């Protein structure tokens, strides 16, 4: 399958290794990965912070960039939820009929990585090897908007060498919420405190998730506390093999 990678702006700038891992994983599974350098961002930060007018050119760029793609895969539940669920709202609120048509044509072809592997490729075992103790945080948009369900967990359970410990109160938001983390930093940190406490009870060395935004938040807290637990994107675990283990 020819897969167009949407790397997302956050991964592009701050977590390039998640992108490398996504490419390595999909190629190992026998697919051709393409990266259209015209892409930038899905526009979620602007849209969700109330800058809907400013988000429109970014949304239109996304739509134009991926118009001809067979399938678009992104290592982020949140950005995919923006495209699949909120682009129609953006078009509706802007009363832009052309954008609405474009969005409705494109949205069903856009997938979050773990749901793509499980629901589109029918895979639960991607042949990964990762010899570490891991806990998994289901991110809100992947869980509630995309309804990826157990897809990430079923992939993790089939990784050789990996010890998985269930995260208590896993379905509780980590408190990131995009600009919420800055605008309402105190409340955000109060939520993070509980998430970090739950991660620590698992005694895992790695906390993983399908979104680097949430992981940047959880990891930012774990790092500040010198907790000794690190965060790593699910793609990097799934891309790891006996030949090459991602950090």
């Amino acid at each position, binding site marked *: 399958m020819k897969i167009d990678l949407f790397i997302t*702006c956050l*991964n*592009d*700038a*701050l*977590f*390039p290794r998640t*992108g*490398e891992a996504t*490419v390595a994983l999909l190629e190992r599974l026998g697919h051709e990965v393409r*990266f259209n*350098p*015209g892409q*930038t*961002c899905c*526009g979620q*930060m*602007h*849209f*969700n*912070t*109330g*800058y*809907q007018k*400013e*988000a429109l*050119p*970014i949304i239109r760029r996304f739509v134009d960039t991926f118009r001809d793609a067979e399938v678009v895969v992104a290592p982020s539940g949140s950005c995919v939820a923006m495209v699949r669920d*909120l682009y129609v*709202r953006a078009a509706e*609120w802007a009363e832009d009929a052309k954008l609405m048509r474009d969005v409705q044509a494109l949205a069903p072809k856009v997938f979050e990585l773990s749901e793509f592997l499980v629901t589109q490729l029918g895979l639960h075992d991607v042949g990964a090897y990762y010899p570490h103790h891991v806990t998994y945080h289901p991110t*809100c*948009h992947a869980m*509630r908007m995309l309804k990826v369900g157990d897809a990430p967990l079923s992939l993790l359970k089939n990784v050789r060498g990996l010890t998985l410990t269930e995260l208590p109160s896993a379905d*509780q*938001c980590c*408190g*990131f*919420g995009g*600009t*919420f*983390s*800055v*605008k*309402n*930093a*105190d*409340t*955000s*940190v*109060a*939520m*993070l405190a509980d998430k970090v406490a739950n991660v620590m009870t698992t005694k895992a060395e790695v906390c993983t998730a399908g979104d680097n935004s949430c992981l*940047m*938040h959880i*990891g*930012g*807290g774990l*790092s*500040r506390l010198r907790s000794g637990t690190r965060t790593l994107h699910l793609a990097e675990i799934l891309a790891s093999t006996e030949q090459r283990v991602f950090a």
Partner: protein
Amino acid sequence: MSRGGIRPEQTFRLAAHETLQNSQMRRNLRSATTAIREKRLRSIAELPNWQELRVEGAALKDEALAALPELLLQLEANVQKAGGHVHWARDAAEARKVVADLAESHAAKEVIKVKSIATDEIELNGGLEERGIAVVETDLAELIVQLSNDRPSHILVPAIHRNRAEVRELFIRTLGADLPTDEPAVLADAARTFLREKFLSAKVAVSGANFAIAETGAVCVFESEGNGRMCVTLPEVLITVMGIEKILARWQDISTFLRLLPRSSTAERMNPYTSFWTGVCANDGPREFHLVLLDAGRTDVLADKVGRQALRCIRCSACLNVCPVYERAGGHAYGSVYPGPIGAILTPQLLDMHDANANTLPFASTLCGACFDACPVRIDIPEVLIYLRGKTRKPAIESMGMRAMAWAMADPGHFGLAMKLARIGQGPLVHDGVIRWLPGMLGGWTSARDMPAVPRTSFREWWKNWEAHGREG
């Protein structure tokens, strides 16, 4: 008096900064919301058609809201036909005046009240007290809030932020009760002793309404303690203050909400007391019934095609109980009698998006979506939050930053340049690969979290290099 109203005295950020430090409240809220969350999930799991019921509930409310003018006139006619009186109140002040005038005309020195958020919204207690009429809240939690001169912090459980030990201390101090322990039965007994006398002596009662049926003129209250049943049956005069959005078209519509509301609010299959009344009856119940129909911003909300779904709300409070922000910051941080996710979309809209403090409420959410999943009438709260954020005025420095980011995202060349600039600019801030201090608004992040440094190579640079070298390694 218990203070009410919907105008926050400060921004959510500042209010939450204070409430988050109240460890007693944090503990009380955590244990209460965790318990009710689990109970609700068990309760709705008993109904195989729960999702269909939610769709039905939303459709019935939408239908009623779309026909609101006709249905309200129909309700008025049917209430009058059954011997009741109907008053129309454009705003809170008009509603307070109607109720106070009525109480005064019956020479009432004291009125008893059923828990009602609409009357808290219009600050009725204060309005009556200004006119020399004492108010007694008869719902246990509302009584606790009133006796402690506090504000309600939850739609269903106004004193959810208090625990038993605090209530015992309050009752000893204010009711002069002799309370050996803080067992719930002991506390309830103290309240009952105090309230029984009030129920039997009051001439005027004030209630809210959960629903009103246009085709019959019936009004109803769902409650748990039986205080409501006494208020709507014992006194001579009953005054009901009802937001105009509470209306349903048909009698049969109530069956859907009889299933949706109790399971969503108290997580019970059925609430203990559901009282319906239609006007007045000869030889039974109140001699006089007055229905006050309250607008107070609701028709403006109805005019907004995205925001109007907030008017479907049946005040179950399921969204509060599942909200991680509410659980930490507590109801008082919202500064309105409508706290939590529903309050964050209702309060600013009822104030026509003109109140600067209320306009910070739509930002009091991570958009995690738990509220939408829990809502029995499928209000897409995250959608409305995002939409309302778009209608607020933003801080100038934030707007500049966001416009700069929009410029960067508008073109990959700009984006590449922005990444290069960030890499250079972060230089002095990076220690051991992380940033522990950021200036200005961004300092909110580094107050408790490290930030990863921008790495030397972006993904797109890696890709370009990787492709140039034949996609190897």
